[in-house]
């Protein structure tokens, strides 16, 4: 019995909440247990038989459970934008199918056969591209959700596991399917299809087939571009992003555990980097012998030596004051006493220094002499060790005497 399209759409519209619930319950493996189905049917006033017989949304499995029909499953995934991610094996199978149909097309001679293979090839290519696109979108969306900040180590563990799983189980196998360097990769097959269709669209005599080959050519050409774009998304965006999420989560998790137990041996299940710390090497110095000798000198017992003081060469001769006093008495009055002293001493042919000069000059203070100073009238006397500036002094015999 053919399904009535209008009835199906009407049913889906009228029972939208029920359909969504059914879809959610079937999400994991497209199946639903009998008791669950009866329960939701009762709650939403839906007849189970309608679902199975009239609309063919579900089919009964030998174990009594129900399975969502593939066409509905795809359509509902599209409606709710919730795609179940296909395993790379499914994509490999499609890739193999493309190659198989292409081989058949090249061997076919019958027009209707050729036409069928072209249509089949176009369909499977479209389907393949759609799957790849859905696949990449899903991975990108889920990767974005992984980027959100996490607090606990458990979240980090899950994030690392999820990222690792996607990289290892999905992206790497997908990359292999799309890898240009593999002779049998889908991208090389599509290039061959494109070249073959391009040639046939000129060579074919039948106008209808020419048109079909032309369509296949453009489809294959677009597929080539499309796949290249998907490869770019996967290898240049998604894989580095996932790798980074994984590594960053590992760093956070590692630091989390380290901070948690840095003060006990458990924190060092992996040793911290064992770096070298500046240590000075002290090789023998080239001048070490001199330095050691100098050092030891301090401890050497030295013999006692006596150094006799040298007699200082001091001219201890002083002029005989009595002799000069007498001489002065005889010369009184003297009009320039200091000059007189100078001249008198010089007559003795001695080394005239301040000490000797003072001995005579001090006669001025003797009571038997009176001195008259001419303060403004000063003159210089050059002795052996000093130059004196002295006033002119007139000296007389004391009146009191």
């Amino acid at each position, binding site marked *: 019995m053919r399904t009535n399209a209008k009835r199906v759409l009407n049913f889906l519209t009228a029972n939208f909440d029920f359909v969504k619930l059914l879809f959610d319950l079937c999400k994991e493996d497209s199946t639903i247990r009998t008791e669950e189905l009866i329960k939701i049917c009762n709650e939403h006033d839906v007849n189970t038989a309608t679902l199975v017989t009239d609309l063919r949304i579900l089919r009964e499995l030998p174990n009594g459970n129900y399975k969502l029909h593939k066409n509905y499953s795809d359509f509902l995934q599209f409606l709710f934008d919730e795609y179940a991610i296909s395993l790379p094996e499914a994509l490999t199978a499609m890739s193999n199918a493309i190659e198989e149909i292409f081989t058949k097309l090249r061997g076919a001679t019958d027009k209707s056969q050729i036409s069928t293979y072209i249509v089949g090839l176009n369909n499977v290519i479209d389907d393949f591209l759609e799957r790849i696109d859905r696949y990449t979108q899903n991975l990108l969306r889920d990767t974005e959700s992984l980027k959100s*900040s996490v607090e606990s180590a458990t979240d*980090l*563990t899950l994030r*690392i*596991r999820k990222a690792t799983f996607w990289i290892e189980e999905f992206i790497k196998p997908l990359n292999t399917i799309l890898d240009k360097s593999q002779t049998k990769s889908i991208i090389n097959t599509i290039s061959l299809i494109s070249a073959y269709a391009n040639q046939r669209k000129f060579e074919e005599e039948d106008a209808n087939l020419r048109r079909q080959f032309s369509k296949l050519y453009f489809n294959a050409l677009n597929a080539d571009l499309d796949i290249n774009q998907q490869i770019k998304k996967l290898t240049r965006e998604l894989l580095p992003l996932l790798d*980074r999420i994984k*590594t*960053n*989560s*590992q*760093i*956070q*998790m*590692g*630091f*989390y*555990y*380290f*901070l948690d137990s*840095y*003060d006990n041996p458990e924190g060092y*299940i*992996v040793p*911290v*980097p*064992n*770096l*070298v*710390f*500046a*240590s000075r*090497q002290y090789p023998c110095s080239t001048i070490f012998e001199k330095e050691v000798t100098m050092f030891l000198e301090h401890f050497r017992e030295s013999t006692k030596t006596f150094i006799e003081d040298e007699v200082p060469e001091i001219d201890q001769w002083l002029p005989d004051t009595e002799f000069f006093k007498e001489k002065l008495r005889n010369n009184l009055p003297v009009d320039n006493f200091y000059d007189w002293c100078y001249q008198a001493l010089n007559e003795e042919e001695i080394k005239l220094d301040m000490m000797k000069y003072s001995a005579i000059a001090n006669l001025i203070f003797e009571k038997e002499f009176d001195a008259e100073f001419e303060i403004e009238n000063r003159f210089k006397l050059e002795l052996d060790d000093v130059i004196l500036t002295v006033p002119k002094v007139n000296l007389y015999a004391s009146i009191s005497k």
Partner: protein
Amino acid sequence: MQAYPNEHKEIVKELLDGKFILYSDNLFQVIQDNKDFYEDFFYHSFDYNLDVRSEFIFLRSKATTERDTRDFTIFLALLCRELELEGKKFREQIDFATFYVDDVWQTLNNSTKKEIIDSTGIKEWRNFLNRWNRKNVISLNGNSFKFTKAVNLFFEFAVNVANEKLKNQITVV
């Protein structure tokens, strides 16, 4: 007689001082060109292992008992934690940002893990930064600093800890 590179004395001094020689340093290329010789030289002369990476070169010692590396790891772990809590992407920050000495000190002190700092050499903040600046792990410039690529060694350590932990968890399951 063995012909040594012209920079030999400088290379030996820098590495024995515990410095990281970065890719941007002229000595980096000289060591890389004479990798086998220097591996042999440091191993047989000092029992040290020369570690040549794509972005930095350093010496590993089997007999290290110092605590400074532990302290730096704690510091980096705390900083990354605080950056994440502030809603910043810690990796981008460590890789590219300029940090202000006083701001970072403030951040560490406001952390709920502050007590860890008090039990380490990090508390002598300026000295701590100066030491790691001399080692070329950070580049200190007055009141600010940046991390150099050598910091990746500590990230590698964290990844190894995480992997070890994950391995243990799997074993338990």
